[in-house]
């Protein structure tokens, strides 16, 4: 009886672990923001807007790069770039897997 109980507990542990291991990992979305002279634009706030709403902002680094991780894939989003309070860029994107948006020109 005790042995059976241990087997049941072990089985439950294996099921839990496999469920955790199979949790789908979200996609990464990257890109570079540049100005009209193709110079990288640092310090800009970048948002992803999806069916769940607007993401927390990512800030472009000194090379104009931004990175979102763990984005639920298989759905459409809008990418938004703000210069301070001003919306400068908003375009629809599709995220199927890890996505490099390339250069976003303001």
């Amino acid at each position, binding site marked *: 009886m005790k042995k059976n109980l241990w087997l049941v507990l072990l089985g439950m542990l294996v099921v839990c672990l496999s469920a955790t291991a199979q949790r789908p990992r979200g996609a990464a979305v990257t890109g570079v923001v*540049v*100005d*009209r*002279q193709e*110079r*990288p*634009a*640092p*310090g*800009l*706030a970048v948002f*992803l*807007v*999806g*069916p*769940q*709403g*607007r*993401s*927390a902002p990512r*800030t*472009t*680094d*000194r090379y*104009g790069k931004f990175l*979102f991780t*763990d*984005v*639920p894939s298989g759905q459409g989003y*809008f990418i938004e770039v703000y*210069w*301070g*309070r*001003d*919306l*400068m*860029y*908003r*375009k*629809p994107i599709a995220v199927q897997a890890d996505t490099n948006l390339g250069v976003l*020109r*303001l």
Partner: protein
Amino acid sequence: MTANDLGAMAGCLCGLLMVIGGMILLYTGAISLNRTSKEEAVSLEFKRLFHLTTHYPALGLFVIGLAFIVTSVTLSRPRDNRITMSGLLTVPAGTTDLDPQDLRLSLESSLKPQFDSSTNGITVDGDPTTMWQVVITYPGMFAAKPVQVLGRRNIPLGSIALVRVAEKPPVNLANIASLPTTIAKSDGGL
């Protein structure tokens, strides 16, 4: 509540139980506060670092209980791990109304990792006290400066100059698609 909090709470509870239990035992007469003989004295020793002998063994219950409580309270105190960086930020000429909300500060390391493609292992080897850079960004500007971070709570940044590297262009309406009404306007959880 973290595992540390739970441990501290359990330690505190044990201490309280020992103190209250000791009081109950004293009250019921199971133990007494009478002085014992030298042979019956309780002695506690830990690796020659700590030695305690008492002729009042009942007091040991209270001392150990109190030690539990004091240790738990001390260990559960939140540690202040904050660091403070202070310096002087200079902005390019002609910059007015710099909005502090748009300033971002990040720390970057110039440590070069080694990658083993056979195991996908990544290793970084270097002196962490010297290889950090504080990077400040503001829309269209950035500043970077090497800084000593580790082991310090107050980090002087000295003078840091923001450099303008991109110009804000006029808004290009062709770049701005309208949001469908089906998309929620509230902040989401991405």
